[in-house]
Every structure is written in structure tokens, then in C-alpha cells.
């Protein structure tokens, strides 16, 4: 199925520009000189095995990690030096980062709404609760929710400021298929309706195939493929993205491509 054309809402300049980005920890090169740009309103998946450099790349896009060299610009701001100019226009979700356990869902959404400078917090919390099926959970502590419920809260938090750029680290990890599908539909609808740009790191190839307009595949900190999921599958002569991933992981990109 042809994905809809991304909406740009009249914005100019790419929301994400990465130039020769490199990060070295001691004698380990986590990211090794990658360059790419993302277009407005697109969903891009960062793929790669463990240690490929996905999380480090996303962390540099968020400004949580300072690059050894190169530059990560988000919404026009150099994230190593001026990230506070744009942080209110972005957001982030990961199952590996929680919101405060002792606070209720309502309190968490209120606190993050205030942090992101959202006005009419009550109205926004009410709308988010309705949108993410959290109405009955609003006054329960976050720590007492199931994994699926926590994910819905995390997503509500991630969209509380209706970000232009949403960074997701394995958004459906450890979710049952039904909840994972619900999350994917939500993300897809958000990106298409708002013209938001989404970057996600995922190990779920079916998810990437369904959501992503573009796949950037990393291996040992370098980009080894950068194209649409369909083109990638065709280039490697496989029937789905999972087979491409496995072929590359086991044989390396050059050898896997040569075997087609």
C-alpha cells in the first residue's frame, strides 16, 4: 500500500540534519561519521543489531549525548549547544524510561504539561486521557499500571505538547500484539494528521515495515542502508524486512546483497 504524502505545513528546512556525526567512548566507536537529513512529516526507522549505534544516535538527536565530532541539528538548533531553543517542540518515549511511579496518571500528565509550557493543562489532560483510553486510570499511581497501560501513559506524555518531532525508542517493546497494534495506529494517525516527524528505533521489523517511510540501517555505527522499506527488501531480494535484517546481521550488507 502506498503511504500518504507527508504534510509539511509550510515549514522550511529539514527537521533533522545530521552531518558527519561521530561518538567515541574510550576505544569504542558507537557512531562512526553518519550523515542524513529527514523530511517533515516522515516516519524514519533506525534499524540495527544491539550496539549498532541506534540509541546513541537518538540520544545525540535529543542532546543527551554530546558528539565527539560532527553535528546533529534538530528544528534548526545544534543539539550539543542550543537544545533548549527547541526542546519544547520535541518529545520522546521509551519503555526503558519511566515517568514517576508514585504520581498518578493525572499528576504525571499535569507535571509534564507544565514542563512543556502547555496552557490549559486541565483541558489537555482531559483530552489526552480520552484519546489514550486513560479516563478510568487518571487517579491511579503510574507504578500500579500494567505494561500496556504504562505505554499508553508514556505516549500521552510524549504527545502532551503535540511535538513536531517525536523520538521513539522501541515504542512497542514488551507489549502484547493488540496493544502494540493500537500504539502503531496511534503513532501513524498522529504523524499523518499533524505533519509531525517521527524517528523510531525498533527491533520489530513488521512494525517498521508498516510505519516507516524510510529505513536507516546501522551496523557498527555506520549507515549501511538508507531507503524505503520496499526498496530495501527489493535490493536484497527478500520477501520482508525481517529477512533483510537477518541476512545483513548474519552475513554483512555486502555479502547479503551479493547473494541476491
Amino acid at each position, binding site marked *: 500500500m502506498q503511504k500518504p504524502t507527508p504534510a509539511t505545513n509550510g515549514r522550511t528546512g529539514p527537521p533533522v540534519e545530521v552531518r558527519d556525526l561521530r561518538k567515541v567512548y574510550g576505544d569504542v566507536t558507537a557512531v562512526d561519521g553518519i550523515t542524513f537529513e529527514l523530511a517533515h512529516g516522515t516516519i524514519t526507522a533506525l534499524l540495527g543489531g544491539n550496539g549498532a549505534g541506534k540509541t546513541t544516535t537518538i540520544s545525540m538527536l535529543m542532546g*543527551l549525548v554530546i558528539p565527539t565530532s560532527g553535528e546533529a541539528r534538530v528544528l534548526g538548533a545544534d543539539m550539543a549547544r542550543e537544545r*533548549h531553543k527547541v*526542546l519544547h517542540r*520535541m518529545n520522546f518515549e521509551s519503555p526503558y524510561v519511566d515517568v514517576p511511579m508514585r504520581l498518578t496518571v493525572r499528576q504525571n500528565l499535569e507535571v509534564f504539561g507544565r514542563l512543556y509550557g502547555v496552557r490549559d493543562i486541565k483541558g489537555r489532560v482531559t483530552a489526552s486521557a480520552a484519546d489514550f483510553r486513560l479516563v478510568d486510570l487518571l487517579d491511579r499511581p503510574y507504578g500500579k499500571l500494567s505494561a500496556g497501560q504504562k505505554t499508553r501513559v508514556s505516549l500521552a506524555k510524549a504527545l502532551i505538547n503535540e511535538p513536531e518531532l517525536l523520538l521513539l525508542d522501541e515504542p512497542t517493546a514488551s507489549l502484547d500484539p493488540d496493544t502494540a497494534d493500537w500504539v502503531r495506529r496511534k503513532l501513524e494517525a498522529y504523524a499523518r494528521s499533524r505533519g509531525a516527524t517521527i524517528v523510531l528505533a525498533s527491533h520489530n521489523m513488521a512494525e517498521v515495515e508498516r510505519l516507516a517511510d524510510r529505513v536507516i540501517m546501522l551496523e557498527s555505527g555506520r549507515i549501511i542502508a538508507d531507503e524505503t522499506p520496499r526498496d530495501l527488501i527489493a535490493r536484497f531480494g527478500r520477501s520482508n524486512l525481517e529477512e533483510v535484517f537477518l541476512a545483513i546481521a548474519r552475513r554483512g550488507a555486502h555479502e547479503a546483497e551479493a547473494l541476491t
Partner: protein
Amino acid sequence: MTATHTLREQTTARASWGRIWAMVLRYWYVIRSSWPRTAELVYWPLVQMLTWGFLQSYLAQTTSFAAKAAGLFIGGVLLWDILVRSQLGFAVAFLEEIWSRNLGHLMMSPLRPSELVAALIIVSLIKLAVAMVPVAVLAYLFFGFNVLGLGIAFAFFFLNLVIMSWSLGLVSTGVVLRWGLGAESFAWLIVFVFLPLCCVYYPVTTLPAWLQPVALALPPTYVFEGLRGIVLQGVFEPVLMLKAFLLNLVYFAAGFAAFAYFLHSARVHGSLVQMGE
């Protein structure tokens, strides 16, 4: 105009007080949600005050000096606890973020480091009030020691002690930011190295000559010297408070610089994305 644009109009990068208030609310919700935690805030100051209070009562019956110096130990322990509880209030509020695996969300949010520090300072004062007001009232009821009876001196003592506690809080949270929960004990214990050095229960002249300059380089030392001046001689020396305040300005600036440095170092070493319980 899209809904995104509309919301962005309502969303400002300059909502500094709003972000500080958000963090104060966040910590207040935690304090409010757990009575054991609130009880814990009062527990140690109360035990300390009772122990030293009874000791002082006993000594007062047996020695003339202790009888004359009523309030020396209780006053000392109350002021010492202001330093300890305020530093712990600051540091533990920050540790909450790491225990709850929330630090990534905060660091990714528009919250600036200075706003986080401002929120931690406010929360330390709230926790201090929760801990120390009941204990101060009980000190009066049990031992007749009225901390407010120290008058204006108490305001200067309090100010100098809390500023020092924030400086220590900044350094200890900075260390945890950089090295993670492996350095958590540092945040809990850093203040206690000052217990012997600040001469809480004895004059500076009690220390060996080589250690006295170290004690005099610490703002709380002047507070405890000031307390002894009031209790033993009935004299309040403002110059001691001025010295403490000037030293505090240096310590706070150094503490904030250390916090900023450790935060930068954490971003260089990638430790912000590796923290958790």
C-alpha cells in the same frame, strides 16, 4: 493554521517559573502520597534531639558548666539538623528521578539545569519545614529550648546553613549525575564529614592547630561559634554571620559550577542515558 501551530502558540520556551513550579509540584505529590516518607523526615531529627536533650539534662545535674550552658547541645543538634535535612532534602529529591527512571524524560524536556536546581532548593525548604517544625516544637515542650528565642540570630544561622546545604547538594547530585547510582552513598554521606570539622558541639580551639584553618574555611563553623556566643556569653556577633555568608557565596558558586561541569561531563560520557534503578 494547523492544530500543531495553534498549540505551539500556547507553548513557550520561556515558561521558566512554570517549569520550576511543575517540578515543585512533582516532588510535593511524592511527599503527599507517602506518610512513611513524611514520618521518616521527622524521625531522625526527633531521635537526635531527644538523645542530646536528655544527655544535656543529665549533664546539667552533674556539672556546673552544662547547667550554665543550657541549650548548647539541643541548639547545636537542631542547627546541625537544618544543615543535614536541607542537604538530604535537596539530594534525595534528585535521587527520586533516578530511582523512578525519570531522569531521561526530565533531561529531554525543556527544563533547564538552573530551573531544576531552583526546584530542588524550594523542595529542600519544604522538607526542612516538615522535618524541623515539629522537632523544634517538641524541643521547647520537652526541654524548654525555644529556637526562635535566638531571635534575629536564628534567621542568620538558618540562612547560612541552608545555603551551605544547597552547595553540598549541588556537588553531590552532580557526582550522581556523572557516575550514576554507584555514587549514591556520596549524596547521603557527604554532609557528615562536616560534623567534626564544623565544631557543632565544641569550640574551634578544641581542634588541633593545623585543623583550625580548615574549620574556619567552612561557613557552618561560624554558625555554631555564633550559637555558643549567644548561649554562653549572651552575645550575638554579626561579623561571624557576615564571614559565613561571604564564604557561602563562594561555596554556592563553586557548587553550581561543579553541578554544571558534571552535567556536561555526563553528556560527554553518555551517562544520562544509562541511569536507572
